[in-house]
């Protein structure tokens, strides 16, 4: 029996309560949730907000691929919730929520960590920081790769992909 997926790109505030509620399962004893929020500084510069730009169609596809890969690694029965915000957020605003539930805790922790690491490398999402001094800048990121999925277990794979 395969677990449930909830995947979305949203421009309304993300809800941790919704994430935990979605993955809750009578057969599961563990859930791990990652919450990403907008920090008041980056690389030493005071930040007042962040705008997220998202290529929705391909992002949702990467979320689905990551859920499949996580189930192959840690069990078909994982319940997986992934939401990313699109638009502008102030300090403390939630940019991403990933929640994974499983019968035992090891799988939840590992799958949740895997998904956030891979999203940062594979999902077409961009971040523009707005600084206290009025400047804005698109943050440098990871070049995407057309050579197919790369593996989190095999970390140097990301580095091999030079565009």
């Amino acid at each position, binding site marked *: 029996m395969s677990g449930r997926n909830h995947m979305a790109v949203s421009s309304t505030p993300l809800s941790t309560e919704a994430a935990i509620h979605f993955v809750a399962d009578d057969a599961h004893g563990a859930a791990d949730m990652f919450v*990403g929020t907008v920090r008041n500084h980056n690389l030493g510069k005071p930040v007042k907000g962040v705008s*997220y*730009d*998202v*290529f929705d*169609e*391909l*992002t949702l*596809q990467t979320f689905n691929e990551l859920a499949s890969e996580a189930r192959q690694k840690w069990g078909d029965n994982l319940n997986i919730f992934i939401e*990313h915000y699109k638009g502008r957020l102030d300090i403390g605003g939630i*940019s*991403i929520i990933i929640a994974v539930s499983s019968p035992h805790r090891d799988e939840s922790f590992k799958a949740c960590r895997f998904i*956030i690491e891979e*999203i*940062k*490398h*594979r*999902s*077409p*999402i*961009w*971040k*523009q920081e707005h600084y206290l001094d009025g400047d804005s800048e*698109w*943050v*440098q*990121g*990871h*070049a*995407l*790769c*057309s*050579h197919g999925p790369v593996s989190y277990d095999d970390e140097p794979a990301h580095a091999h992909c030079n*565009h």
Partner: protein
Amino acid sequence: MNDTMTLSIRMFGAFRKYHQGELTLDLPVGSTASTVKSAIAATLQQSNPAFGNSDLIEKSVLADNHRILPDDAKISSAVTLAILPPVCGG
């Protein structure tokens, strides 16, 4: 033989600094993703001389709504594509 197609290119992330909305390109039918990327760079540089100083185009990939296109992928009809700079979600 020398038919052209009109491509619409969606801009994302840092590309939005150089162009508002979709970029329209007329290119020969069967152009590769690599050729499309060069055409995007040439067009953007025309209106934004500063663009040429960045290595943004080399670090970016072309995609449709389903996948990232390899450099040698041939585009044979008028479609909407997207140019994707390095990502940093999460």
